[in-house]
């Protein structure tokens, strides 16, 4: 039930901020559309731990700055390689084991790998991820398991 | 400032179009078109600031949505050959 209220609140905030009109008629129309959307989402049964994962909302404050910094670092590395005349890339494919327990955790891990330039998740089989990497350094970075551990903490114990 | 951003984005778009024309496989072309779409969102935002018409940002937002759904639809078409079939194992 908490999820429905939080979904309705988020939708209402988005509606108010995107419309920018605050007279009673338009706000009541907005409230009506928010209730309709929440009802449709409830009928579709997508307001669950996957569709609206509010339990990780607080921990994003710790995870995302770290992820942004990783993205900046690997961006600079990939940019240097693209611009150097000899094009020093050594593409390879490898498999990593993900230690997250839920599908949400694995999705966050796979998406974090893909967001970091130099590594792309190309296939997911259960808890095994096939990763394509541009260089052996970025492959070693993923295989060291630092990101995996971070995402497992981010996913939480519950 | 926004003119500089627009010029850089346009240069990127030209390079993406180059790959679209060269690209040996169909996936290369889809990749380049996806990149072109993302840059279109940015250039619409730059034009909004350049001409001081902030309503264009709504169009940029809608374009970002359409670009993503369009790429997924095209990929699904090339993977399954039709739009009506579901994922793995489904009829």
């Amino acid at each position, binding site marked *: 039930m908490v999820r429905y209220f939080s979904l309705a609140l988020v939708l209402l905030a988005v509606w108010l901020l995107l419309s920018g009109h605050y007279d009673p008629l338009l706000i009541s129309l907005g409230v009506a559309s928010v209730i309709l959307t929440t009802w449709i989402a409830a009928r579709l049964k997508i307001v669950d731990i996957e569709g609206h994962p509010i339990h990780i909302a607080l921990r994003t404050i710790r995870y995302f700055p770290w992820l942004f910094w990783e993205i900046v670092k690997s*961006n600079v590395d990939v940019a240097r390689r693209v611009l150097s005349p000899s094009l020093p890339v050594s593409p390879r494919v490898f498999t990593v084991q993900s230690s997250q327990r839920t599908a949400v955790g694995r999705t966050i891990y*796979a998406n974090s790998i893909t967001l970091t330039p130099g590594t792309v998740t190309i296939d997911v089989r259960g808890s095994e991820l096939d990763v394509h990497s541009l260089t052996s350094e970025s492959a070693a970075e993923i295989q060291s398991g630092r990101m995996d551990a971070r995402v497992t903490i981010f996913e939480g114990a519950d | 400032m926004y003119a500089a951003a627009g010029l850089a984005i346009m240069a990127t778009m030209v390079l993406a179009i180059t790959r679209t024309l060269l690209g040996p496989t169909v996936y290369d072309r889809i990749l380049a078109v996806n990149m072109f779409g993302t840059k279109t969102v940015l250039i619409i*935002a730059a034009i909004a600031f350049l001409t001081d018409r902030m309503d264009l940002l709504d169009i940029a937002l809608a374009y970002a949505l359409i670009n993503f759904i369009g790429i997924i639809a095209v990929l699904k078409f090339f993977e399954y050959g039709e739009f009506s079939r579901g994922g793995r194992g489904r009829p």
Partner: protein
Amino acid sequence: MLEPALDFLSWALILTGGVFGVIGGIGIVRLPTFFTRIHAAGMAETMCAPPILLGMMLQSGWSLVTFKLVVILVFLFLTSPTASHALAKAALHGGVSPHDEDVGRS
């Protein structure tokens, strides 16, 4: 006092975004195989759009415009890895081998 500093920061962010965008474009033309080109496109998406949009946010201050830019940024950040992964997976199932060095070379 604050105005020139904000202007300078916006310029720096927008130039960073533009430069990385062009490098991503060069990468997508220069890199040899399809799977390596995905990395260049990912670079153009993660390091080009966010700095440019952040620079614009600094210029617009606290307003609805900033919120719209935040929505665009969040949306691009959520969809770009999904699109990259869908592309890589479709190419893999469509018969482009990531192991072969010469497939897709042009």
